[in-house]
């Protein structure tokens, strides 16, 4: 097993809510509330969750674009939040970010050459001055853009091309970790595939580790080795890609997956969509105990008082971390046919006696 390159422990970020005439702090938005995980060398960790669950804040914390309220991030043996000045700048070379919106992530007044060359201006020791133009052109070539377009401005490129420029800037300093904050959600589907493929190609060539934040479950499944599911600032479930997509044990993950459209019309009728009751509670005043208990069909009194820990729980085949007191697998119709390994696995699971019947689940849910 590869060793971890980045370890987050109990990351917490609370934003104060100021109110009243005196601008006193009247509460906190608990954007990220105790998230821990490890990122291994060369792997892709997908982070999924609905809007406002703290995915992007998590990404910004890992970049140290925000200071955490508490918790730590250890990157390659170095505690990130205790670094200052020169040491922090040096650390930033190894961990870079690709932003969601390619229309705001590139300075409209700079040429592509200036944008991709900026990392070299900030860290002049990476590439000697006379080699920078060449280095920028190599990067353009690497991300599949014409190196002769070095003098163009961002508005002369399409969305997909701009995102490639953003990726080129991200990998310019040869980082070890690239944090991708919804890098494809602003692009249309055909371009999404190209960008995702480019990222996989770069990972193979450069040995990058990715943290891939997205809300599109199928994109995350395509690129990720492991997946973390976030709900209201907490990690609900974390596991290998097939553990999360094939035998999720957390009710929230099951509900999320049930909402993914099935491309196979013969399976469509068999699929039971779990429609959750109500809205996502406000992160300023999250529910007690398990954060999901207000919308969960399995919720019992214990869920209102005890916070379920993210620990190994059986999933029918093996076990993987899940933060639910009543974690148990439930049949999920395969939504995306990625490889044949799922098919084998499904046949195995169907034989399991402990398998939970969909009818029982249906009691607390509404049919769509």
């Amino acid at each position, binding site marked *: 097993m590869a060793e971890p390159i980045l370890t987050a422990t109990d990351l917490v970020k609370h934003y104060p809510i100021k109110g009243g005439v005196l601008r006193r702090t009247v509460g906190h938005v608990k954007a990220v509330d105790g998230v821990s995980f490890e990122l291994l060398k060369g792997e892709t960790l997908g982070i999924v969750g609905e809007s406002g669950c703290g995915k992007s804040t998590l990404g*910004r914390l890992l*970049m140290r*674009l925000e200071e955490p309220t508490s918790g730590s991030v250890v990157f390659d043996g170095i505690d990130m939040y205790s670094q200052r000045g020169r040491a*922090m*700048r040096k650390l*930033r*070379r190894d961990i*870079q*970010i690709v*932003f*969601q*919106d390619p229309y*705001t*992530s*590139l*300075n*409209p*007044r*700079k*040429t592509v050459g200036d*944008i991709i060359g*900026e*990392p070299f201006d*900030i*860290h002049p020791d990476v590439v000697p001055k006379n080699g920078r133009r060449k280095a920028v052109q190599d990067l353009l070539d690497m991300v*599949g*853009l*014409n190196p002769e*377009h070095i*003098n*163009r*401005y961002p*508005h*002369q*490129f*399409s969305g*997909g*091309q701009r995102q*490639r420029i*953003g990726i080129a*800037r991200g990998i310019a*300093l040869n980082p070890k970790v690239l944090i991708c904050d919804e890098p494809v959600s602003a692009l249309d589907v055909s*371009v999404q*595939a*190209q960008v995702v*493929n*480019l990222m*996989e*190609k770069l990972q*193979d060539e450069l040995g990058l580790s990715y943290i891939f934040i997205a809300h599109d479950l199928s994109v995350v499944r395509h690129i990720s080795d492991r997946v973390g599911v976030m709900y209201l600032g907490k990690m609900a479930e974390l596991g290998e890609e097939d553990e999360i997509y094939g035998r999720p044990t957390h009710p929230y993950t099951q509900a999320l997956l049930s909402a993914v459209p099935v491309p196979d019309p013969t399976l469509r009728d068999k699929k039971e969509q779990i429609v959750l009751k109500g809205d996502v509670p406000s992160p300023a005043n999250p529910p007690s105990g398990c954060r999901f208990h207000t919308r969960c069909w399995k919720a019992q009194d214990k869920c209102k008082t005890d916070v379920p820990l993210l620990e190994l729980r059986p999933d029918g085949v093996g076990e993987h971390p899940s933060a639910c007191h009543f974690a148990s697998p439930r049949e999920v119709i395969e939504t995306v046919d990625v490889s044949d390994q799922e098919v084998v696995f499904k046949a195995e699971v169907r034989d399991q006696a402990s398998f939970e019947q969909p009818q029982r689940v249906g009691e607390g849910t509404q049919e769509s």
Partner: protein
Amino acid sequence: MTEASTIAVSAETGAAPGGDVQQDKPRSLASDAWRQLKKNPIFWVSVILIALFVLMAVVPQLFTSTDPNEAILQQARERPSLDGPWFGRDIQGYDIYARTIHGARASILVGVFATLSTLIIGTALGIIAGFYGGWIDAIVSRLTDIFFAIPLLLGGILFMSVMPNDQNTPYLVVVGKVVVVLAIFGWPGIARLMRSSVLQVKPNDYVQAARALGASPWRIIRSHVLPNAMAPVIVVSTINLGVYIAVEATLSFLGIGLTPPAVSWGVAISDALVGIRTTPHMLLFPSLFLSLAVLAFIMLGDAIRDAFDPKSR
């Protein structure tokens, strides 16, 4: 996978925007604005007017060989005529044409230097307030509020009565005092505008990306925030230049701006008031030049604003 990605990559590279052949020259916002400006007749009219006034200010001898301080009292109040002094003579017997030409220098000097100083003070404070936020922002913003609360004319009268000019005060000191008054009371507008503009630019991802790369705050301000936040301030400053020329004339008219022997349009208008019914030409010519200069700068500002605003295209 590798195969698919290479196909995808080449497909998109091939589908680069159709501009490859026609234009290799980069098109920035500024060059777009310039193309827009070139087609705007109002821009050219104002540029020609401004060029004329600047020329008057720098080398008035090109336009007139008459000494503006030569008073021929026996010809005082002479009417304009094509063969005499073109614009006639005023109550002191000065040649109005010569004085109007020479008066441009004071107006242009005051306008340019007042604009530059408000631009520098306002931009610097606005950037600091907008970029750093927090208590720095609170202090700067309250400071601008305080200065906003003082009416310009009242402030000008106070300043000038504390530091009056006399006959021997050098010309540049007289002009300098007016510039100082305008700068003190003009910067808050620019600072506010700059602050709001910086607040708009700062959350953009490209600023965050620069931070993530480890760029220093100075570098972020210089190469990302400032270039993207300057446009509104430049437009307003151009318009302000005209306004400052008008305010200079107002202060001079009230006797607290430029004072004789300095030659200026405001002073001339003030002197002309005694004969407003009998000899209106004394008032007409300096007022006409003043209005044209103010109009030229305001039109230029408008044209630039339209050119820099992508929504107007």
